[in-house]
């Protein structure tokens, strides 16, 4: 479905900042998150996890655990249904049920440290944990692969012996390379030969984690008629249902997923982990089973986003026009294929118009957790490489890097690196807003003794997605509206949905009561991810609201005994086209429905092919202690084309939150791996996410270039803001100390090294 709009501007609700509907429950502790689930007779499940990153399982003895008092059920790989090897689209990434099943519970081989080898359900969590310690597993330890270079060596141990890799369309076996893709257009070699300035650099990045504060969890019952009910924190009840059914080899209609409140996801709660295991434990025990993941396991076995090796080459003419680019991108997939090289290719050159480009991407298996989407998966990595290279090219040629970004900016009609043509986009408007921003026009200021300051900028891009969403409306007799929508709400989206409905119906945001539906109360809806929720589910809500207006016009026609086509509706008031003084308000009409045909309900759904691209630019000011290498962010501004901000506070929040995740990634966050494949820093103590004390206020500039694909001009905003921070900080560090860093994290140790 593709429609285009000339979005209106005289909004009553859109652009205001009502208190979020779920806010009261969340500030009082009443909101029920996944981990808060209770059921009569509930027991607890835990996993027994591999201490090795790569090993063959020689034997498992669960007898002592099973015999322990209070233990109800024990599960091993032998109990997992045998899922077929088939790729299914989850909206933001694909899933192969065979591998997904094996990721949750090892069969005969463990592929990453913490890989579950058994699961136990017991009367309480403490008992289950004690029982888990009684499971005896014999391993034959294999050499671990922890980076893409080692993975591709001829003598590298092979993680998945039955993997058939795809090398530009050719099948490859006995390999750790799951895929190699290429995008190429123009005359790349010729353009480089003719370029006045070229630069080629290599960049390396460690894996990082989404770092949501709520651990993964699931509660399940498997009942007598083989119906499976799941309560969980998920970014999509329906995609979770697809995965659970696929892994358990049952029909989707046998699975009901009720999404409880979710404590952060950032992509990492699209994959399921505990849901199928809790269901199987419930089947074995006949009891409801709840599982909550320990933090170490969250780090060791869920999430991360790919570590990367990237080589970028750029060519420009004498006038500072980019003419050629190549990118070679190796991403770590973890223990199963799927490293987001596709999105990386879509994003790497997106902010720039370049006539001749080539991209090669490789999806590589390593003995680390299978990667999961993380806020613009693949884009922050390539943004670090590309935006660093752009600045270095400008330094070498003596060009102003903001002017260079303006001169080479993408616009409608620019061809992206993967061949797609841009429609209406806001890159140029973002760059103009940057030039006029308070931050850009403020001096950096003098550093105190012993410190140096620098300023850096960088672009960021995410394509945003559309996909499927559904919403239902029911009108109450007091003129309020019940909204049931299918997108789980991670950051206030429920209120944005209600605001779409309220804007159409001419009522207040709080006259709409939004609820996130379970898989049996609303139509199919894709994940809360891809920056699609406000865009696509909001669109579905807009359709549902317009459909409700149509239903109500019928009722007004009955009331006034006129033709429906003669009923008008504007700003919450129905009127007669023939007799302008004849009007009835939305709320008044709602009270009369009992005599006008009864309940008025409506539904709306979308399946959107495209979404409207998101561009942003960040400005980072850093101050570096040259004796310790410590970097402090002293001022930070995020500028982004947000289309139309439905609820500006939560749009700002997306920009601020994304920026700070990027700041953490830039400076300190990393999977610090030992040679045996152990993550040495698998706690919040040593996986150093920024605290409130590490940051200034994060300034935002919302640039509104309405998206013609959405009735109110919405563009997805959530993912773009994690892309600019890493290169913006790299460029700022270079500005401060005169030395450029090519690897993340750009921590104090690396800065001290660079200063030597």
């Amino acid at each position, binding site marked *: 479905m593709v429609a285009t709009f000339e979005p209106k501007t005289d909004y009553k609700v859109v652009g205001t900042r009502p208190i979020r509907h779920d806010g009261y429950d969340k500030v009082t502790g009443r909101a029920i998150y996944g981990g808060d689930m209770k059921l009569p007779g509930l027991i607890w499940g835990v996993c027994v996890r591999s201490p090795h990153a790569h090993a063959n399982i020689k034997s498992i003895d669960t007898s002592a655990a099973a015999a322990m008092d209070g233990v109800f059920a024990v599960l091993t790989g032998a109990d997992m249904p045998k899922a077929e090897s088939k790729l299914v689209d989850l909206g933001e990434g694909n899933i192969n049920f065979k591998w997904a099943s094996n990721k949750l519970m090892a069969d005969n081989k463990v592929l990453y440290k913490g890989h579950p080898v058994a699961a136990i359900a017991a009367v309480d969590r*403490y008992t289950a944990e*004690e029982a888990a310690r009684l499971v005896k597993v014999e391993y034959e330890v294999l050499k671990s692969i922890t980076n893409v270079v080692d993975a591709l060596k001829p003598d590298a141990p092979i993680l998945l012996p039955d993997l058939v890799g795809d090398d530009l369309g050719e099948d490859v076996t006995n390999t750790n390379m799951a895929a190699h893709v290429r995008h190429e257009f123009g005359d790349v070699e010729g353009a480089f030969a003719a370029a006045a300035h070229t630069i080629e650099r290599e960049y390396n990045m460690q894996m990082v984690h989404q770092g949501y504060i709520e651990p993964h969890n699931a509660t399940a019952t498997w009942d007598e008629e083989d119906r499976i009910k799941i309560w969980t924190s998920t970014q999509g009840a329906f995609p979770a249902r697809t995965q659970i059914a696929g892994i358990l080899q049952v029909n989707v209609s046998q699975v009901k997923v009720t999404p409880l409140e979710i404590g952060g996801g950032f992509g990492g709660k699209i994959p399921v982990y505990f849901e199928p295991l809790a269901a199987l434990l419930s089947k074995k025990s006949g009891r409801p089973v709840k599982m909550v993941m320990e933090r170490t396991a969250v780090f060791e076995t869920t999430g991360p986003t790919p570590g990367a090796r990237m080589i970028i080459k750029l060519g420009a003419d004498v006038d500072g026009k980019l003419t050629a680019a190549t990118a070679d991108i190796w991403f770590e997939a973890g223990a199963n294929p799927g490293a987001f090289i596709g999105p990386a290719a879509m994003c790497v050159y997106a902010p720039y118009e370049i006539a001749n480009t080539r991209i090669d991407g490789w999806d590589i298996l390593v003995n680390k957790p299978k990667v999961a989407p993380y806020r613009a998966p693949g884009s922050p990595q390539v943004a670090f490489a590309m935006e660093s290279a752009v600045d270095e090219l400008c330094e070498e040629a003596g060009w102003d890097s903001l002017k260079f970004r303006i001169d080479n900016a993408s616009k409608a009609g620019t061809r992206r690196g993967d061949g797609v043509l841009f429609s209406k986009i806001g890159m140029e408007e973002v760059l103009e807003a940057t030039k006029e921003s308070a931050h850009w026009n403020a001096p950096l200021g003098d550093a105190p003794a012993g410190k140096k300051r620098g300023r850096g900028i960088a672009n960021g891009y995410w394509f945003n997605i559309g996909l499927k969403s559904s919403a239902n409306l029911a009108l109450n007799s007091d003129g309020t509206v019940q909204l049931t929508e299918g997108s789980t709400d991670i950051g206030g989206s429920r209120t944005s949905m209600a605001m779409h409905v309220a804007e159409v119906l001419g009522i207040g945001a709080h006259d709409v009561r939004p609820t996130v539906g379970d898989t049996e109360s609303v139509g199919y809806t894709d994940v809360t991810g891809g920056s699609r929720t406000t865009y696509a589910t909001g669109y579905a809500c807009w359709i549902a609201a317009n459909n409700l207006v149509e239903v109500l016009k019928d009722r007004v026609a009955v009331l006034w005994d006129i033709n429906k086509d003669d009923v008008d509706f504007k700003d919450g008031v129905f009127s007669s086209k023939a007799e302008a003084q004849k009007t009835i308000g939305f709320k008044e009409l709602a009270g009369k429905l009992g005599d006008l045909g009864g309940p008025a309900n409506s539904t709306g759904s979308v399946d959107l092919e495209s979404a409207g691209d998101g561009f942003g630019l960040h400005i980072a000011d850093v101050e570096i202690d040259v*004796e*310790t*290498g410590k970097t402090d962010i002293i001022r930070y501004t995020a500028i982004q084309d947000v289309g139309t901000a439905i609820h500006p506070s939560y749009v700002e929040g997306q920009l601020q939150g994304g920026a700070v995740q990027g700041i953490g990634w830039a400076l300190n966050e990393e999977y610090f791996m030992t040679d045996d494949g152990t993550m040495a820093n698998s706690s919040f103590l040593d996986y150093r996410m920024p605290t409130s004390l590490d940051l200034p206020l994060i300034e935002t500039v919302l640039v509104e270039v309405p998206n013609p694909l959405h009735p109110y001009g919405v563009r997805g905003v959530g993912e773009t803001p994690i892309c600019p921070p890493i290169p913006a900080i790299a460029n700022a560090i270079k500005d401060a100390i005169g030395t450029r860093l090519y690897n993340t994290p750009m921590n*104090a*140790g690396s800065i*001290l090294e660079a200063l030597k």
Partner: protein
Amino acid sequence: MHPFAYVAPTTVAEAVAVLTEHGDRARPLAGGTDLLVKARANAWELDAVIDIKNIPELMTLSVNGDGLSIGAGVPCYQVYDNSDVVAQYPGIVDGASIIGGIQVQSRAGLGGNLCNAAPSGDGIPALIAHSAVAHIANSSGTREVAVEDFCTGPSRTVLEAGDLLVSIEVPKPAANSGAAYTRFIPRNEMDIAVAGVGVYVVLDDSGQNFVSGRIALASVGPTPILASEAGDSLAGKPVNDETIAVAAALAKNAATPITDMRGTVDQRKQLVEVLTGRMINKAVERARG
């Protein structure tokens, strides 16, 4: 976590009796911020935890003519909220103020920090610099151990089965003395020291010359380290950049760090030199009032 019993004695004798009975399968519980983490991670398998917070002498913080007495269970916040301690022992306050966040400081104390014996224990270097002494009780009586001799390795101390740390006694600071502690961490709070340096200096009446100095280091060896040569080098020297640089270089030499996820050998040695210089200057500033 292995299920353990909980006992809450009200006297040292009772606590020692339980400790003696269980050997290394019982541990005193003060703030719990290390103990419960280790028990949960199965690093320690315990049959009993002994809550010491109902034993009055272990919960007493007092400043008097003899010095400062810190009961083994006194939490950090009581140290930095005590105006006498802040005035006379600012180096110890520096350490107590940065162990964990506010929540942890409500529970964790210097006694537990010492018994946990992490090389990175932020509470320990300033105690060493101040020549503090640990008072230990067991079933046969009490004994005293200098804090610099208390830790014998990572998570290892001089405490034997049945031993209970009762208090840490810090001598009254000399006239014209000053102390300071800092650490380097990648963030600004909630982190383990990459390197830490505590300094105690005594100046002469002019404030222009060092009478003596003690320097202790964290996170650059298997235990917190007393850098004797570095501290001793200050004695009798004028307060100037050269004197301080010499001491800082000696402190760097005393550091024997490893490379791990928190930092490299070179980085840690450089940090020791930098932080030693900064802390001597800060201690001098405080000594001069």
